[in-house]
């Protein structure tokens, strides 16, 4: 952080959608800066009304290109759109190459769009710790829709459902047979399935497998995840994809599920924050505990096993209060 950017974050400029103010506020959130704490507490009451649409799926399926096409579609309807695109941080250097912006080709003078790249910074599950709170700031800045692109996901990366009101799982033809679609994790969180690169052969087979999966599935209170075919090379299916997102949002409204889903997400957020604190404190204290060092010596020497060592450490800590 360079000189002129320290200090309180300008709420008025954030409300007005000032790019410099928004950019800095998001960094402050990412860095755990005290000024972000004050800002988020002050603005929370104004949030919770926008759609947050998550796009997840394996790397290389075209999430960034798809989002770029959707942004163009939504701008055509006069909607203001913000994008948060997450890429992984290196577990070795902590560094990151954030490359999703390459696909983003809005004109530089389009004021109805904001694009922010974000490194995962060690968070598991496909999004960053700061993603949800950054989305709140963007909502206060007046964006109508917030699109979140996850890290290229593996089968267990499902954290997007703790942020997004609608989760789109993006796939491509030939990712495997229909048994893959039965596996737990990624396929379970889809409110909408998107088969991208539908210009490639095999798209119809992929759609059939997914439609079958959706039909087999325990119907989630009246919603069957639709399957939409899209292509950004020979542009097709983009309006249909957004219609599917809107249909899901309308369903949340109609069925009365929205407050219940929001409550679940917020409970997870609060408990998660407390857990992070407790975890950090406990880890620090345990690592300094001489009892740990003593037990560790015995475990390394194969005199005590790790389970017994953990039990003893837990017991002595409890006894000490």
């Amino acid at each position, binding site marked *: *952080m*360079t*000189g*002129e*950017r320290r200090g309180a974050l300008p709420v008025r400029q954030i409300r007005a959608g000032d*790019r*410099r103010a*928004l*950019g*800095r506020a*998001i*960094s402050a959130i*990412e*860095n*755990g*800066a*005290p000024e*972000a*704490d004050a800002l988020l507490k002050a603005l929370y009451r104004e949030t919770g009304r926008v759609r947050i649409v998550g796009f997840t799926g394996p790397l290389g399926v075209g999430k960034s290109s798809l989002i770029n096409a959707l942004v163009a579609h939504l701008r055509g309807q006069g909607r203001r759109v913000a994008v948060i695109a997450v890429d992984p*941080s*290196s577990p070795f*250097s*902590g*560094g*990151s*190459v*954030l*490359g999703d*912006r*390459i696909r983003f080709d809005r004109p*530089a*003078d389009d004021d109805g769009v*904001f*694009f*922010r*790249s974000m*490194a995962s*910074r060690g968070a598991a599950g496909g999004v960053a*710790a700061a993603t949800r709170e950054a989305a709140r700031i963007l909502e206060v800045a007046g964006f109508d829709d917030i699109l979140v692109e996850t890290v290229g996901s593996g089968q267990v990366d499902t954290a997007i459902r703790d942020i997004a009101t609608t989760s789109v799982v993006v796939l491509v033809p030939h990712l495997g047979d229909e048994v893959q679609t039965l596996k737990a994790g990624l396929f379970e969180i889809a409110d909408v399935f998107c088969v991208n690169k539908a210009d490639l052969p095999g798209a119809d087979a992929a759609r059939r497998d997914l439609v079958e999966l959706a039909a087999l599935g325990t119907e989630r209170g009246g919603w069957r995840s639709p399957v939409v075919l899209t292509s950004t090379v020979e542009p097709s299916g983009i309006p249909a994809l957004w219609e599917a997102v809107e249909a899901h949002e309308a369903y949340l409204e109609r069925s009365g599920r929205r407050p219940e889903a929001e409550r679940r997400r917020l409970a997870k957020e609060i408990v998660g*924050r407390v857990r*992070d*604190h407790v975890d*950090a404190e406990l880890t620090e204290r345990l690592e300094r505990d001489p009892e740990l060092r003593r037990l560790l010596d015995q475990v390394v020497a194969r005199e005590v096993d790790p389970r017994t060592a953990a039990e003893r450490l837990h017991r002595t800590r409890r006894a000490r209060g």
Partner: protein
Amino acid sequence: MTVRAKKAPVRVLIAKPGLDGHDRGAKVVARALRDAGMEVVYAGLRQTPEEIVRAAVEEDVDLIGLSILSGAHMALFPRVLALLKKEKAGNIPVFAGGIIPDEDARRLRKAGIRAIFGPGASLEEIVRTAQRLARPRA
């Protein structure tokens, strides 16, 4: 209640302004900066100065690296610097790499480009300079 990050990583934008399809150097530098622990926003090819400045502001970078091999640096770099000032982002340091004649390099430095690397520059040198420019007091 905030969990304070140990150390905020440096954020740097790497972009190629103008009509120039040679991005190998930019990619090599992006990777070296990543390995040095930086968050590198890679904006890629054929960026206008307006797009570069917009990206720098939205991404709130600490540093901008411009790569150019087309010869248009005397037109494009000063434009980036001027636009940064206009967006109240004139405090973001800009460095550059590419084929830039000595005389041009002198003038660009005077105009406010903080460092210029030619074909002979080592990655170590580039990384060290980037760290120094991004965190002058560190």
